[in-house]
């Protein structure tokens, strides 16, 4: 029993400690004298690595999710004779939930893990220390561009994901199953509210982007400098990132539906 309490205390302490360390780490990455002219090209370079290279997986999964949604939705709506509502069903579920959540999970798996591995490897091979010895702050030169690139890329990727998913559902619903194209689009247009649905979806995307990238760069920067340590850090990025997305999604959704 005592041992159990002791362990609980230890876990609690180490949790608080890592939250504190990562908070400091984030604030030292974000709140610093802006040197935008120097930072801008670095961020662009990282947006390519983090965002553009994640496009393929985002587009493909968006397409399939949209197509599956259309199939399933058509099957159910058909029972009520309401197949023309398909556009509405797909658009609302994708923009409100599936887009941000699945996009975020894919981002954590694709971009987050590679960020962690890259930074962890730079740490192991003393590249970050040697940068510090040249009086170049690695937080500024290495971490900050990657962080901003992740934060910027995520909402854009999620927007792309949503659009492709709707296109996928159009392909299946209209082209294959024969829903009327005019009804499909006009129902969708009438039911999706820009302020409530689209903006809230993008807010989710932004929050997930911040959290996932933060976890990824933190895990890389503080990875135990061994091969196994980097492996563990990469796993942690994906696990913590995914859990954070799902947990935050619940909180954000309840705030958005309840409060607004």
């Amino acid at each position: 029993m005592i041992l159990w309490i002791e362990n609980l205390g230890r876990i609690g302490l180490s949790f608080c400690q890592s939250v504190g360390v990562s908070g400091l780490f984030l604030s030292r990455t974000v709140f610093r004298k802006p040197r935008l002219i120097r930072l801008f090209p670095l961020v662009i370079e990282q947006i390519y690595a983090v965002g553009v290279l994640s496009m393929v997986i985002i587009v493909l999964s968006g397409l399939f999710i949209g197509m599956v949604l259309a199939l399933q939705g058509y099957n159910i709506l058909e029972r009520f004779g309401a197949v023309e509502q398909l556009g509405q069903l797909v658009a609302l579920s994708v923009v409100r939930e599936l887009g941000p959540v699945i996009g975020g999970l894919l981002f954590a798996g694709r971009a987050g893990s590679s960020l962690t591995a890259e930074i962890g490897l730079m740490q192991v091979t003393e590249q970050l220390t040697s940068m510090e010895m040249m009086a170049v702050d690695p937080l500024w030169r290495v971490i900050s561009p990657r962080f901003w690139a992740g934060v910027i890329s995520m909402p854009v990727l999620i927007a792309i994901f949503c659009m492709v998913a709707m296109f996928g559902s159009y392909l299946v619903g209209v082209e294959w199953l024969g829903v009327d194209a005019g009804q499909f689009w006009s129902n969708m247009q009438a039911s999706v509210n820009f302020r409530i649905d689209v903006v809230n979806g993008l807010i989710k995307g932004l929050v997930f982007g911040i959290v996932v990238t933060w976890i990824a760069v933190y895990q890389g920067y503080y990875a135990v400098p061994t091969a196994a340590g980097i492996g563990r850090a990469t796993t942690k990025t994906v696990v913590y990132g995914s859990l954070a997305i799902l947990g935050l999604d619940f909180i954000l959704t309840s705030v958005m539906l309840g409060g607004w």
Partner: protein
Amino acid sequence: MLPAIFYEIIKNFLYYNNLTLMIIDEVFKLIFGQDFIQMTDNFVEISDLYFTRNDHWIFRDISLCIPRGKIVAIMGPSGSGKTTLLRLISAQLYPRRGQVLVNGTDIHSLNQTDLYKIRNSMGMLFQSGALFTNIDVFENVAFPLRERTKLPEDIIRSVVLMQLEAVGLRGARDLMPSELSGGMARRVALARALVLNPQLMMYDEPFTGQDPITMGVLVKLIRSLNDNLGLTSIIVSHDVAETMSIADYVYVIADTRIIGEGTPEQVLNDKSPMVAQFIHGLADGPVAFHYPANKYQEDLQL
């Protein structure tokens, strides 16, 4: 010039401890708006340094000085903490107790901005090279110039090529670090460390993995940098012959403390058993070849 002489006279006249020295420095700084502190003769001064790692003593009460413009070698068996010492001097690590003065400032008391200012005058060759693996050799050497200076592209190009020529790798400028041999990578790292003309160079094992010809070139290069540019150098090595040929002063560390020091001749002729054992490479003697452990027989369960 005159204030500098005045400063020296006052300092010698009033000097009896570090505090008065500090006050004098501050007063002079106030009056002349200029730091005279770099006029002291030791670039690095380490006093009463204690350092532990995982409850395992690395240093216990180490004091040493690196005189300005000299080449000082730190020697000692593997695992004795030579790399750790360099990391303490450059404030990558913080000591348990004790002080490291670099150019007259306590380097471990600085905030990040001031620390980076001092690091601008330091160069370090890492034991592993630590090249940036995502950019090629040329960009690696150009990195400090691009980050720390606003030089135009053509000047950066000539400076980088000059540095690479000095280490014999001008032809390798387009290779990626993964395409270099170990010795080549360390020479690129040397070029990169030297490109900003530091006042203090720390070489961690510069000769390891180099063939005899390259070794000779490197020894000459290090010597000529010191003599022509007034660099201060710290060389960490266990290559006894090479190090003795180049160093002005040698410290031998082992077993958490300094076991011998002096000019190369003094160290070579040192009669103390520990130093003699290390210098002449004898297997039997007081210096432990093994990392601290329990009895061999017990471990093997005989």
